[in-house]
């Protein structure tokens, strides 16, 4: 009789432990998801870097302006520049 009551109590305790463990895990996951979706400092999805424009290199590579090359004219001009 006593042994049966002890077994029964152990069984109930094991169930309660399992339920408590599952509930704690579920609460943890729920809190994690809620934090990810509501707290601005948490990523909502997989982090994706802002695309860097391909031409950034052109704008940033030069540490200063650089000169081209002119020479004395060799023939009547075929082009002209205006003024802007």
């Amino acid at each position, binding site marked *: 009789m006593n042994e049966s009551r002890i077994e029964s109590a152990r069984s109930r305790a094991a169930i309660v432990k399992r339920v408590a463990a599952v509930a704690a895990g579920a609460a943890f996951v729920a809190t994690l998801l809620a934090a990810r979706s509501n707290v601005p400092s948490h990523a909502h999805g997989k982090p994706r870097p802002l695309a860097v424009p391909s031409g950034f290199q052109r704008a940033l590579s030069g540490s200063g*302006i*650089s*000169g*081209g090359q*002119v020479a004395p004219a060799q023939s009547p001009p075929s082009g002209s*520049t205006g003024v802007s």
Partner: protein
Amino acid sequence: MSDLFRFRSMGCEVLVAGADDPQRRAIRRLFEERDARFSRFIPTSELCHVNRSAGRRVLVSPAFAEALYAALDACRQTDGVLDPTLGWALVSAGYDCDFEALAPSELPPGPAHPGRAGEVRTYGRLISAPPGVLLDLNGVVKAMAVDDGAELLSSGGWVSAGGDLAIASPTDIALPGGGAVRLERGALATSGSSRRRWVRDGIVQHHLIDARTGRPSTSPWEQVTVCGSTCLHADTGARAAFLLGRDGPDWLDDHGVPGRFIDRDGVVVMTRLWAEMTEGWPACT
């Protein structure tokens, strides 16, 4: 000159030499796309959207970010002489619509708006301009379009827009104010106050704004022509050298960039490099 292709974009005439039909179409489309994105006078342009968002962070397109970074880089390279935040200064001076539509006005110029480029914040493609700032990227956008247009030419030729010209092969170029040079490599840009000028309350205004005063520059130069490795560099050099006034030639020499200046009396001043390249000996200083 018979194979020239002409069209209007960005408030100026664009000339293309040496292009076949697909290249002509591509270059025209390139300019039209840039104009639609960067015009101060097209309400649907991305520039107008960004300007309406002053004071807030806004995510811009890669093309817009590229132009803004180029403009801020030019600002840094010139110690703030070139400034992309002078839109209101232009509006105050009266440049508030397409240049072709500008008419003399008896209204006095509005208040001065010095440059505020140091207050523009960038985080990749997220940008933030302070309230009350109107970006104007016209200078760098036109130069970059000329550079990109010339890159589309596969068998020589050149692209010119306003005062900017880039080549795909060595070409003899007539210069404003007389004379000609052979452009072996890179690009030419000419900036000056003789073309885009208008009258406000009897006072002549022009589009080259001094970022320190927020008013049209009182530079002694009529025009400055600079040869850069790209049109962007040439345009940066020409505008900065114009705005630096009498210090312009020395500034170009310090940067190893050839340039030619013409003052209001028609006197021509060449930088040391320009004189060496075009005449074979150093200029008298």
